[in-house]
């Protein structure tokens, strides 16, 4: 299959060229506009078709002798956002991958090798290959209104290999370049705004968006007439370069333990860029791109990206959104930390009154005061205006009685995790509210159906499971109970969307998705420790996965008591797979916040609690057992219909637990390592979905 066939569905970014008479008699500029013909909601990307068109335009430009300069800009709000990745999953051979890599270089580099100076006018979002187009130009201006500049390749499993790893460090120095190429992508794919990109030296001049292009053209004219001299900070190609590489390598190793190849490959390219010629640098980038395109990690990364971009926005199994009822007032039962966080979130995102209730005036006051203090923090950071802050504070109030819920449309409980308590709370709420008022529970493990069972209107109960901290983690597990009707579910999805959460529909099964998967792995690893594996060995065992944190650190974050509680719930349901850990119970009884002391050294008392086992495992054995357990549990969850598909498990793990793209969440990794097939008899996903075909 030819590369053109692979990208047969390419939305081609066209190269529009128009002559512009520059001011100050600076001559004629051929101004290129990159435009895929759609509005800003479909940003321009580069596939083979678009690259070929750009190449043809550069042929025509190169053939002219009447030009003083060449300029490149984008359609409104978008400069260009990089390679068209839609065809990549269809690439079957390294030769094809290499061809794509070479094509990008061959076309883009011409911008820097014309006989006249080239200017990039970065008018809008610029990512990946878009940034590289700009880097190939001799000069760059940027709009102060640009919301996103990034080289996100390492986030997906690639390197910025159309010149990025060679040109950027040579422009702004290795240290700053690595921040853009490595650190930002590994830090939740952080984006730079226009002024930050300018400060880093990525752009030579910055202009306001109102007349960005006109002023950029004026500036370009002044550069051409010599009136403006472009000054750039000198790049240190000595020890500072190597030092920056060493520092970044240490950060990457600390974060990923070699689990993802792309950032290390990028590091190597930047390291070598110091001494390479353009030809050598670009050739090395081509090889790196070809290798990575043919890596399972990238295929998993693209799969994960697609889940987060698409599946997260159109949740599988969500009912018709027309069924959703409006939510104009929210009640929160409880005034503890979780309840207060929920109160703030609802007030901020829905902009409706939120009433917290508690039986204790002191706790209530504390809960409301917490919300007000958080609002003040937002105000202090300039995240909300004084008027908005006043509005938010006014929206969140406290009440000792649930009568205040009478006109609420949505009541969520965040009280103690005990079935009896929750049932009673719902019964009390039901006595006050309308028959349609949605009752949501933030339970992390209890049965939603059971909670609803004794109500007059059990169809209005739904699970609404947030992840801590609720303001940060994007996942919301929406749990359909046995009685939950479509209108309730639709309202829950609409509310979750308004809260800016990614919602996944989950069956009412013990601990739902994220906690069940995490706990299964944790339980298995704790089990090996109880058998005699040292804690530090167990901690290192999962390092090759590149998870956000080792298992016992995670336990400390969640809190041993909560881990124990969820484990008990799961044990009740599945005693074989979730053995009760007596030692975890002891740890809780001892009041320990985890196995670590505040300085992150192991707490000898905790170590003592877990001591006594006689058959220690190696790191490899621990990892194998953990992965086997994951595969088994996920298969069972799919068989039980906890979620619609493996994709939903992966989405949950990515968004709710921060599991990495290079694992594709988790099922692509279990597939590609053969664990799924060995443990459960088959793969979770077909070949090619999240792996090499």
């Amino acid at each position, binding site marked *: 299959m030819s590369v053109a066939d692979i990208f047969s569905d390419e939305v081609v970014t066209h190269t*529009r*060229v*128009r*002559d*512009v*008479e520059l*001011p100050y008699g600076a001559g004629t500029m051929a*101004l*290129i*506009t990159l*435009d895929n*013909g759609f509005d800003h909601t479909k940003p321009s990307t580069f596939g083979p078709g678009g690259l070929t068109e750009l190449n043809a335009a550069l042929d025509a430009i190169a053939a002219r002798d009447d030009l003083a300069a060449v300029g490149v*800009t984008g359609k*409104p709000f978008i400069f260009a956002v990089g390679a068209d990745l839609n065809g990549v999953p269809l690439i079957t051979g390294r030769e094809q991958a290499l061809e794509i890599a070479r094509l990008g270089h061959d076309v883009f580099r011409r911008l820097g090798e014309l006989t006249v100076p080239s200017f990039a006018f970065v008018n809008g979002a610029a990512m990946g290959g878009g940034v590289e187009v700009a880097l190939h130009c001799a000069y760059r201006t940027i709009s102060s209104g640009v919301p996103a500049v990034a080289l996100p390749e390492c986030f997906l499993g690639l390197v910025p290999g159309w010149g990025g790893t060679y040109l950027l460090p040579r422009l702004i120095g290795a240290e700053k370049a690595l921040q853009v190429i490595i650190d930002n992508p590994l830090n939740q794919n952080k984006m730079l705004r226009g002024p930050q990109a300018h400060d880093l030296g990525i752009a030579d001049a910055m202009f*306001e968006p*109102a*007349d960005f*292009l*006109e002023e950029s*053209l*004026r500036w370009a004219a002044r550069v051409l007439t010599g009136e403006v001299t472009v000054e750039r900070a000198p790049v240190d190609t000595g020890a500072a370069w190597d030092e920056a590489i060493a520092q970044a390598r240490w950060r990457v190793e600390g974060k990923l333990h070699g689990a993802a190849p792309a950032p290390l490959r990028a590091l190597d390219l930047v390291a070598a860029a110091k001494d390479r010629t353009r030809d050598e640098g670009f050739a090395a980038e081509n090889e790196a791109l070809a290798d990575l395109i043919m890596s399972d990690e990238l295929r998993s990364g693209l799969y994960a990206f697609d889940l987060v971009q698409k599946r997260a926005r159109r949740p599988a199994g969500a009912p018709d959104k027309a069924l959703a009822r409006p939510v104009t007032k929210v009640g929160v039962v409880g005034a503890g930390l979780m309840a207060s966080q929920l109160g703030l979130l609802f007030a901020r995102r829905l902009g409706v009154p939120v009433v917290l209730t508690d039986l204790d005036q002191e706790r209530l006051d504390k809960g409301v005061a917490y919300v007000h203090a958080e609002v003040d923090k937002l105000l202090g950071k300039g995240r909300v205006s004084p008027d908005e802050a006043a509005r938010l504070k006014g929206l969140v109030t406290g009440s000792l009685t649930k009568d205040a819920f009478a006109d609420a449309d949505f009541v969520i409980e965040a009280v103690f995790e005990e079935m009896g308590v929750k049932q009673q709370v719902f019964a009390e709420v039901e006595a006050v509210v309308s028959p349609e008022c949605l009752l949501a529970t933030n339970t992390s493990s209890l049965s939603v159906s059971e909670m609803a069972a004794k109500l007059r209107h059990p169809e209005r109960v739904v699970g609404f499971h947030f992840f801590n901290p609720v303001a940060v983690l994007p996942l919301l597990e929406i749990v359909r109970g046995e009685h939950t009707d479509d209108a309730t579910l639709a309202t829950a999805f609409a509310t979750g969307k308004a809260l800016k959460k990614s919602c996944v529909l989950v069956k009412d099964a013990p601990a739902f998705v994220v906690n069940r998967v995490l706990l299964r792995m944790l339980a298995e690893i704790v089990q090996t420790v109880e058998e005699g594996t040292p804690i530090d060995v167990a901690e290192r065992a999962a390092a090759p996965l590149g998870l956000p944190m080792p298992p016992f650190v995670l336990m400390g974050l969640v809190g041993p008591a909560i881990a124990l509680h969820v484990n008990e719930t799961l044990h009740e349901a599945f005693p074989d797979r979730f053995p009760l850990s007596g030692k975890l119970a002891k740890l809780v009884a001892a009041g320990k916040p985890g196995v670590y002391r505040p300085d992150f050294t192991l707490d000898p008392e905790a170590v003592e609690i877990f001591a006594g086992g006689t058959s220690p495992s190696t790191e490899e054995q621990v990892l194998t057992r953990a992965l086997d357990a994951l595969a088994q549990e996920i298969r069972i969850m799919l068989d039980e219909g906890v979620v619609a598909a493996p994709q939903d498990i992966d989405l949950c793990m990515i968004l709710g637990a921060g599991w990495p793209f290079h694992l594709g969440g988790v099922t692509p990794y279990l597939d590609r390592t053969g664990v799924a097939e060995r443990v459960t008899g088959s793969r979770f996903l077909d070949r090619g979905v999240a792996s090499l075909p």
Partner: protein
Amino acid sequence: MPRIARDVVFVDGVRTPFGKAGPKGLYAETRADDLVVRVIRELRRRNPALPAERIDEVAIAATTQIGDQGLTIGRSAAVLAGLPKSVPGYAIDRMCAGAMTAVTTVAGGIAFGAYDVAIAGGVEHMGRHPMGEGVDPNPRFLAEKLVDGSALIMGMTAENLHDRYPQITKERADAYAVRSQQKVAEAYEAGRFQQDLVPMAIRSAEKGYGLATRDEPPRPGTTMENLAALKTPFRPHGHVTAGNAAGLNDGATGCIVAAEEVAAELGLTARMRLVDYSFAGVEPEVMGVGPVPATEKLLARNSLTMDDIGLIEINEAFAVQVLAFLDHFKIAEDDPRVNPWGGAIAIGHPLASSGVRLMTQLARHFEEHPDVRYGLTTMCVGMGMGGTVLWEAVR
């Protein structure tokens, strides 16, 4: 305590290049408000001595105040241009004399003491907003014969003017138009207009981004023969053609107007002083004659005669209307005082914007004619009006 009126000066004026209205014009895919924004920002850039927060008003005229020319365009353009939110703005309309009225109105406020500095200008995107878009004339106009049916069609009012002044023949009108084209071409050659044009980015979905740096309407090399061949769309065998009238155009203008003492305080250059202004009404069927009574009133009030006037910028909506004015004041058709760089027949006439173009050019003429004390900007206005502003050189 008696109030003392303050002197008002014109500090600086700029405009976008004018484009031809329509799907092939320069600004076919450019918004009207963006044209205004660009003008405001250029005025600020050219006058760094003016602190933005000292701008007390932004008055922007548009004839059709809907869509991108709606939303109180003076205010919305001020916000879009990045002026401080504390700077107010409004929209103003007197059809073709919109920008002129924006200037006289803020000038009145400055003289009164309500403002120190204001931005005034106008915009008309006749491509996006064709003449008469959305109008709903009251049926009484015709039922009670308040106006003739031709009064709302500007070309017909021009034909009516030929009826009233039979000595203004089509040949005279065409000859005037040819001269206007020649004068514009010469002024372009000499770089006159360019100094007050602000290049405007233009985007076309088909062609990508470009830059408008010159007026699109001029037709250098226009001859009597070319013009004789044109149709007379408003009347069979009539007089008025696309060649001896201004076209349908897109563009925006703006200027800084200030109290003379404040301009001095801020270090702004006063280019000319606004002495007085006058608007007058005439029969709507012959709206083109409007500048005559407006100017008569103004000269009389200031005890001046046309002999005292050294420079005249008269808007060329139609050649016949300019000739009617010149005949009335017994000024020769080729008098060098009149439109030294040509006029709207060649450059274009984006309705509500044109008033400030006249002023910007007059300010330049004063620089080139140090002996001249008084100058006029004058124009005819739809629905039967004329407006004239008397300016004095500031030396």
